[in-house]
């Protein structure tokens, strides 16, 4: 079975540009979460979507937005890119809303470099 897939795997943008990252969860998983991982640090929670509704938001500016589609895939959008947005963006899916009853499965991430 396919795991969580993310695209693109690598991309380079310049300051002020906008970027869209895509995620396909494991088949049957209805929850998708986004995390930002800066080099040398652990992943930081950005958003969680469940059944196409936002169910959680981390401490990130409004430049960050996301959505989930009827097929449970998701997009993360970042506007007005800053140098500090350079990071590995991870998508994770789970079968249910919470992970007490299931595991959280991460994709391999999208590496964003902002120049």
């Amino acid at each position, binding site marked *: 079975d396919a795991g969580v897939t993310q695209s693109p795997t690598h991309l380079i943008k310049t300051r002020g540009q906008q970027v869209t990252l895509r995620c396909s969860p494991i088949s049957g998983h209805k929850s998708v*979460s986004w995390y930002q991982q800066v080099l040398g640090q652990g992943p930081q929670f950005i958003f969680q979507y469940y059944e196409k509704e936002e169910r*959680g938001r981390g401490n990130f500016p409004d430049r960050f937005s996301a959505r989930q589609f009827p097929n449970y895939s998701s997009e993360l959008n970042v506007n007005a890119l800053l140098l500090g947005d350079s990071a590995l963006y991870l998508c994770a899916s789970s079968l249910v809303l919470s992970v007490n009853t299931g595991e959280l499965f*991460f994709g391999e991430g999208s590496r964003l470099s902002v120049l």
Partner: protein
Amino acid sequence: LAKTTQPISMDSYEGQEVNITCSHNNIATNDYITWYQQFPSQGPRFIIQGYKTKVTNEVASLFIPADRKSSTLSLPRVSLSDTAVYYCLVGDMGRLTGGGNKLTFGTGTQLKVEL
């Protein structure tokens, strides 16, 4: 979410047992303890989760004392391929609050396994 403290790095040799301890003095009644493993440029991978006493699966054991203020991840007979960053996470994972998962990762423990 309860803050966690774990060693920044650990070194070991192939075939040895490795124990990584995590402190979480402010753990709440509803909190679960979860460990993830992460290789470079990959997403974290779920290892084990527990609430109290001992949990064992095919890859690791998790020991949680009665006061639950710490936990120990035990990796039996490590190999070179176990070289990775290990994260300890504590939280209610949204099970009771319905708020979904908002995993909070620290900086993790860099485990290096040598021949």
